[in-house]
């Protein structure tokens, strides 16, 4: 038992060291030329895509272990420590989050964990506002977006530390809107071996919050699971499993609208997008395997720490200090 624990501790340590080394090496080599004139120190064309592939793979593993979406790690870390401009990182971040949500969606829907009736009204608000957010994000000067991104990431860190979750929130009476839309359901909870019925309340306030969530998702190219889950679970009162699954599925719709804005504005570069998508999806696949035999709490603390550093770096970069 002890040997097994030590083996996995070594594995985790190796992953952590690799991630830190990657970010460190990337930071050392990060150049920021502002003109397209060929830089004599430039690397072979495959160098940065390979770094992106490896880094995204590590982010995919850590995202699963920490229970966060890949997009929320990808944007601050890649924009903070690699030489890509924030415009392209946000474009790639959205496609990464979109691909992850599209991949997870079918399974979650079929199992009845992601709920279409709950997702559709929220998605309409969030995806419409994500378009507005993406347009604002592409219109604002980079330093302002970078500063706001840094502040948002630090806010997410606080949410991750403080936010509680409720397995089965009590919803004494569903509100009129959720009743008229028939947003309710039943799912089988294997840990209790029983069927759990759920309903929601405070739907209008929830819809209002999805305005803010959509704008932020579009502006920063982040997946918005960090905000979706607390709203669905703590505010609306959906069980945590329904909230997490519906949030993941919701991203496939929210990020679609914002992704089109970035795509139509030229902020999507295949040389960045494809290695990132492939890396993060392979990483998520391995992450799910590792999850069964590791201690997610430790990883979560580590990810919160890395996210805090990335958020601070984005903030300082935006303010012209970093």
């Amino acid at each position: 038992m002890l040997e097994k624990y030590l083996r996995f501790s070594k594995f985790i340590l190796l992953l952590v060291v690799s991630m830190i080394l990657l970010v460190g090496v990337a930071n050392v080599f990060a150049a920021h030329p502002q003109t397209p004139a060929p830089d004599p120190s430039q690397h072979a064309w495959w160098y940065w895509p390979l770094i992106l592939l490896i880094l995204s793979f590590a982010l995919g593993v850590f995202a699963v272990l920490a229970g966060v979406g890949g997009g929320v790690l990808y944007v601050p870390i890649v924009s903070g420590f690699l030489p890509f401009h924030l415009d392209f990182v946000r474009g790639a971040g959205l496609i990464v989050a979109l691909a992850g949500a599209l991949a997870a969606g079918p399974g979650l829907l079929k199992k009845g964990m992601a709920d279409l009736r709950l997702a559709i009204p929220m998605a309409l608000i969030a995806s419409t506002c994500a378009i507005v957010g993406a347009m604002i994000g592409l219109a604002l000067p980079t330093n302002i977006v970078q500063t706001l991104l840094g502040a948002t990431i630090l806010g997410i860190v606080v949410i991750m530390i403080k936010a509680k979750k409720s397995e089965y929130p009590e919803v004494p009476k569903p509100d009129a809107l959720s009743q008229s839309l028939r947003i309710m359901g039943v799912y089988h909870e294997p840990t209790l071996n029983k069927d759990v019925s759920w309903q929601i309340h405070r739907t209008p306030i929830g819809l209002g919050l999805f305005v803010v969530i959509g704008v932020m998702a579009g502006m920063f190219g982040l997946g918005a699971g960090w905000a979706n889950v607390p709203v669905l679970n703590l505010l609306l009162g959906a069980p945590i499993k329904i909230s997490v699954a519906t949030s993941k599925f919701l991203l496939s719709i929210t990020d679609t609208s914002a992704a089109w804005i970035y795509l139509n504005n030229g902020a999507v570069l295949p040389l960045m997008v494809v290695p990132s998508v492939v890396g993060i999806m392979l990483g998520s696949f391995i992450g799910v395997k590792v999850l069964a035999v590791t201690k997610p709490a430790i990883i979560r603390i580590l990810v919160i720490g890395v996210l805090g550093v990335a958020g601070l770096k984005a903030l300082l970069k935006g303010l012209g200090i970093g």
Partner: protein
Amino acid sequence: MANQATEEQILYANILNKGMLIGLLGLVVTFIIYGAGILEPKIPLDQVQNYWVMPVSEYLQLSGIHAGWAWLGNLGYGDMLNFLPIAFLSILTVICYLAILPGLMRKKDTAYVVLVIVEVVVLLVAASGFLGSGGH
């Protein structure tokens, strides 16, 4: 054992599953075509790193790449070909929404019929490029 997945939910999931697999496979295949140089790219591979460090508006101005749907007319270039699976993945939600619409109409689920139609319009407007292109 209850499984609350509705008929629409299963249909949505099945289309999403197939579409996602096709899209991701397309992403890998077109990237191999691009990276291996099977089709010449619009921007040479070793020059892309000179552009990704600058704001998108500057990149468009200096590279001569046209934003919006211009890539569709340049599918003979390796880099532009990659936009095909990216666009497919980005339109997949619209396909899924359209697929569940007849079922919702049959059930006279008016509220959701309206929500689904409005969502499709929103996504198509976003995809159309009418909302502006060209960055900062």
